[in-house]
């Protein structure tokens, strides 16, 4: 018997808040994390402002209680903060945590520490404190380390599909639950800023030095960001055993591939359309029932055109409210899917729609316009959250109030 999948908790840290409450305040107040970099050592600190979490690694270690935190990368530390909040918010006991699954996503893993100590690490004649990062660059490492710290053993998986990663982690968690392989799956992602990603994206000429403007005709690219978020997925059976009231239901999801180009989406938004349609079909929900779409909306010329077209093609009768929250947090890459899922959950809880900040000029190619101002007291029941990445990976989550 296929299990319905509910959400019973979540945790988050971004450049606009170290926890759920702070993130919520920022969303309401329009406070953004965009600014000069002061913690990451890069020549681009002033010419490519990004959304940096203004906490040094030592402060993150204090917050997570990892002591001297030997071998803990920033990605792991950020992830741990969000994971600890998620577990606490779901009220899971140690035993329940033990049999849970942890599905975490990242694209950078420990690359930030690897690039910092690159020459030392590769010179085997050298020793020193840097050696704690000898084998932490690989993406799977952060997940195992977090699982070991909080005591998760039920299922361990790390996913990396570029910017759709944590959405896919959530989807796989849901699959494991609905197929009765897990009662609880904690799913999400974590990403720390690094020279590697800043320069990598810059070499693709899709980074905007100005504050990003999703769906705006003058948009020039994305801002990078760092952060982490995890949501606790739970089976209907477990919910009832724990007598827990769910926050929302993960009613449907879609995963497709654009198969157009390695780093660009098809202008028509075929992949986006497929992913969203799959999410709707899997939930048996009609386009007319969708109240809001949290768009991937990176503010690159390509994505917003592609996604906009995809939305228009799917929602032929009535296009729901939509917005991108990336002006708040920047593009947090692998963590974007879960961070934005948390923002959708906050929206459902408070019946609010977060605005698409910085929008001024209509794109002539689209007939649709994003939400420009904070909306309150909106009747929200079904929300779609989109995450699209390099490699043509397109994913969409359908969240519904419980």
């Amino acid at each position, binding site marked *: 018997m296929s299990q319905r999948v509910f959400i019973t908790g979540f945790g988050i840290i971004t450049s606009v808040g170290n926890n759920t409450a702070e993130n919520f305040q920022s969303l309401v107040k329009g406070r953004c994390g965009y600014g000069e970099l002061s913690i990451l050592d890069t020549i681009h600190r002033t010419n490519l402002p990004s959304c940096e979490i203004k906490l040094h690694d030592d402060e993150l270690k204090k917050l997570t209680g990892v002591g001297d935190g030997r071998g803990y990368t920033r990605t792991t530390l950020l992830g741990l903060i969000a994971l600890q909040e998620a577990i606490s918010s779901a009220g899971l006991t140690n035993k329940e945590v033990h049999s849970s699954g942890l599905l975490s996503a990242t694209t950078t893993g420990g690359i930030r520490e690897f690039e910092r100590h690159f020459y030392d690490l590769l010179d085997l004649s050298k020793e020193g404190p840097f050696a704690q990062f000898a084998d932490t660059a690989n993406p799977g490492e952060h997940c195992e380390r977090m699982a070991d710290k909080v005591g998760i053993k039920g299922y361990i998986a790390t996913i990396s599909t570029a910017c759709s990663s944590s959405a896919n982690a959530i989807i796989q968690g849901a699959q494991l639950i609905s197929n009765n*392989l897990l009662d609880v799956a904690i799913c999400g992602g974590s990403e720390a800023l690094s020279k590697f990603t800043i320069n990598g994206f810059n070499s693709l000429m899709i980074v905007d030095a100005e504050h990003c403007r999703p769906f705006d005709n003058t948009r020039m690219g994305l801002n990078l960001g760092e952060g982490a978020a995890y949501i606790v997925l739970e089976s209907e059976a477990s919910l009832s055993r724990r007598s827990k009231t769910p926050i929302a239901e993960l009613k449907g999801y879609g995963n497709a591939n654009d198969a157009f180009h390695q780093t660009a989406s098809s202008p028509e938004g075929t992949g986006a359309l497929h992913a969203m349609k799959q999410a709707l079909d899997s939930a048996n929900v009609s386009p007319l029932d969708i109240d809001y779409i949290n768009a991937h909306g990176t503010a690159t010329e390509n994505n917003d055109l592609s996604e906009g077209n995809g939305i228009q093609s799917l929602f032929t009768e009535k296009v729901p409210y939509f917005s991108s929250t990336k002006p708040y947090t920047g593009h947090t890459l692998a963590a974007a899917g879960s961070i934005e899922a948390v923002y959708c959950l906050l929206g459902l809880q408070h019946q609010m729609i977060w605005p698409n900040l910085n929008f001024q000029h209509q794109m002539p190619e689209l007939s649709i316009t994003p939400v420009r101002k904070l909306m309150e007291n909106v009747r929200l029941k079904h929300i779609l959250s989109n995450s699209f990445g390099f*490699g*043509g*990976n397109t994913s969409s989550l359908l969240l519904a109030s419980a």
Partner: protein
Amino acid sequence: MITMEGKKCYINGIGIISPQRTFDNSEFLPEVRSYDNNILTSVTPDFKAYLSPVQLRRLSRMLRIGMTAATICLNDAGIKVPDGIVTATGYGFLEETEKFLKELLERNEKQLTPTFFMQGTYNALAGLVALSVKCTGYNNTYVSKGFAFENALQDCLLLLNADPGVNLLLGSYDESAAVQYKAGMRENQFKKEPVNSLDIFSNKTDGCIQGEGSAFFDLSGEPSASTWCSVEGIQMIYLPESPDELKETINSFLLKHDVQETNVDLVVSGMSGCKSKDQLLENLERVIFINTPRAYFKHLCGEYCTSTSFGLWLASSILKKQHIPETVKASNHTYPSRIETIFMINHYFNRNYSLILLKRKLEVRS
């Protein structure tokens, strides 16, 4: 109590490039290559026979290997476009990542080209395969170190359970990169002294030898004309505390799949050649499957995060060819001439244990 429902799938085709001559499916280990320096690298075909000039121009060595393995697999299965692609890797495309980082540091973050950055992304292979065959279906990539391949296989099993009529391409890749070798040496993962790869089980020292490879499998939820065996189920165990815990898990796994120890014809084991990390598995051999012949494979492919895929190739090839190569025989038992059921157990540095059960497909009555 989590109850696991049996979910199986069928293997219809394979493409594998490894440190042995395995890229030609008409052969089965025609020769055994040994390595003396603890680093095993792939025996590759002429890529020009499989990839277009445009692909060859852009692709790194490992991407060529991965794309070719995928092509061989699809040809083997007689499939043009799968319905979904799921890949797995532990460390990703390290050469490209290293190249990009080197340039970044040497040029002080100025004037960098995008190719190395893009080719270094973990899902580059899954994306490129999708692009080359225009597969717009499900696409995912696991990077969970010693569980990556198993997670990917589990994902496929769930998808095929929901939609048995589709074909999924399951693939893995990992590189014998110098960067990872150095990381491994710092962490005492690899042997300190050179050991001939064929001697790693008799050598009794700590540390593994580094391997690499890319293996693709075409899977379906229903048997086809190309099917020769099924994956009956998979189970992962993270950080088992004792041989008893493993033994109990194996027994429940067999029970769930309605298989007795005595029904298993062969155990394919991922013994790694590292004395300390193999301890649990060695102790296990004394308490379970005592009377069952064993086969080891890591002397052929080395150790890497997704080496289970090499083991899966070996097990499924044994089922197909009904032949157990001498080089993999690892116990004094009498080896059967008819092999119907294979039990696989693998571990990655005594952290990630996995169990896989395979069965030969019985002849379909015409």
